[in-house]
């Protein structure tokens, strides 16, 4: 008998499984569950983009692509980030195309973090930063953002956690799960601390296209002096509804990107060829698709926020991504209990806030990447649940 536990890497074995997953498994076992738990667009990839993917296959483009990604795609990414977020990157040496934004996060953390380095991670946030840090022998330092600040990271919160070992700050905005957005003035305050303590920043801007209201997303690299200390991570999944194509990218200073490229080269080799050809089309002709989907998300967001407030589930108004993060305190229950009872009594699946960090206790993540009809039904069930108590 092999004692696998003694063979397997300790660090891997100690990683907690994702709290989102766990909850979804309950939902999967039940019939007639209506879910507001998924973190990907309900739209399918725009047809003209899919067609380019088909065309790429038809022409027989079935080989590896260059390690960095096709130059044509990198040029389009460069053009896109300059056009939409006002930051310019050299396609030859400051861009690497990855397998989703997730790979770019992994590469960035591994390229920068070594034994004992502290990685500052604001929470609630997406679940991957902490495990990736641990695997890179870094030390995760959690910063709990607060509802009274709209779950934004403040300079003071950041500065309080700084030690001589602080190296990398993760900036996960627009935020999954809270929908929080950092405006220019907020980022400028953070930039001062970053400068003062010589930090590097991983700015996860995967939801950058999904902000609501007049002001667009501001890239951290667009803040004065920050481009040289920032690695921007983004991708095609959320903006163009291309999750299944697995395509993302990192933008940053050449010395960092070239080390990330080495890891990418050895671990992944290159991003999918078909997806890259489709992505070129998305960047060239997809701006109107982004607007169309964003307008639709915006309508759903307004509906959910309005209905939740009416029901007494207070939520601060999310300004980005496609999640609302209501407080469930009115129920007198803990998040996990609330979500569990909700699914058993009304068959609505949402994700408990603590899946995104301990400070998510008292909240739940509700995704609105669902049709209005679906959302409306779920809202009615949630209201029944609250009334029954």
């Amino acid at each position, binding site marked *: 008998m092999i004692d696998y536990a003694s063979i397997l890497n300790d660090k891997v074995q100690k990683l907690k499984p994702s709290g989102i997953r766990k909850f979804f498994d309950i939902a999967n076992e039940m019939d007639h569950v209506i879910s507001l738990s998924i973190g990907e667009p309900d739209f399918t990839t725009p047809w003209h983009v899919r067609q380019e993917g088909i065309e790429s296959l038809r022409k027989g483009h079935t080989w590896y692509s260059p390690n960095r990604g096709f130059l044509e795609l990198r040029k389009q990414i460069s053009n896109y980030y300059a056009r939409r977020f006002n930051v310019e990157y050299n396609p030859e040496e400051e861009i690497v195309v990855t397998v989703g934004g997730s790979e770019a996060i992994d590469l960035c953390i591994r390229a920068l973090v070594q034994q004992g380095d502290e990685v500052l991670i604001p929470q609630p946030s997406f679940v991957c930063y902490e495990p990736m840090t641990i695997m890179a022998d870094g030390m995760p330092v959690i910063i709990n953002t607060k509802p009274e600040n709209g779950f934004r990271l403040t300079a003071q919160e950041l500065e309080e956690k700084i030690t001589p070992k602080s190296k990398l700050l993760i900036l996960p905005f627009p935020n999954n799960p809270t929908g929080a957005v950092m405006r220019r003035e907020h980022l400028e305050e953070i930039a001062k601390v970053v400068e003062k303590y010589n930090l590097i920043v991983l700015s996860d801007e995967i939801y950058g296209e999904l902000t609501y209201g007049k002001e667009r997303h501001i890239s951290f690299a667009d803040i004065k002096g920050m481009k040289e200390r920032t690695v921007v991570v983004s991708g095609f999944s959320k903006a163009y509804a291309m999750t299944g194509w697995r395509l993302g990218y990192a933008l940053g200073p050449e010395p960092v990107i070239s080390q990330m490229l080495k890891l990418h080269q050895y671990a992944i080799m290159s991003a999918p060829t078909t997806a890259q050809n489709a992505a070129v089309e998305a960047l060239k002709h997809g701006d109107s698709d982004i607007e169309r989907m964003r307008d639709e998300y915006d309508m759903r967001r307004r509906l959910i926020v309005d209905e939740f407030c009416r029901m007494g589930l207070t939520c601060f108004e999310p300004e980005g991504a496609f999640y609302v993060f209501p407080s469930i305190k009115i129920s007198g229950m803990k998040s996990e209990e609330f979500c569990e009872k909700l699914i058993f009594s009304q068959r609505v699946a949402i994700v408990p806030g603590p899946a995104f960090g301990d400070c998510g206790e008292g909240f739940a993540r509700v995704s609105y990447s669902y049709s209005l009809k679906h959302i*409306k039904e779920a809202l009615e069930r949630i209201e029944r649940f609250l009334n029954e108590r």
Partner: protein
Amino acid sequence: MSKLLELISKNNDFTTAQLAAMLGKSEDDIRNELYDLEEKGIIKGNKAVIDWNKVPDADVTAIIELKVAPKPETGFDDTAKIVMSYDNVESVYLAASSRYDLIATVRGKTIQEIAEFVSKRLSTLEGVMGTATSFVLTQYKGDGVVFYENDDEDEQRSLIL
């Protein structure tokens, strides 16, 4: 096009409060706009979209093209008005086709019933010079909704993390 119209044309199942929230307007604005749209006859009704393919004893639908001799002054209108007054006629269009002028969709219990309707009622109408009837076998899309192989999209998404 009005955002309100666009929204309710896809789903007319919301309260005015919900519509107001979604469109960032006041409930009064929404009520006024809806009243106005109804007054002007722009909103004509509100009914469920049904995939008849799935209803076992559903009616038969036929698309009937009619070649019509236009009249001075009124053109095709007189004939169209007579065709549309039958209850089993679902829609009537004037088409710019070289072969036919009016297109009507007709529902009936059986093919025979529709055949009888066409031969006795439509082809005998004054000005109707010819008809061509096509029976619908499968409806792939209707009222902007895809029927055919339209599995619940939410079900297809799997949770990754």
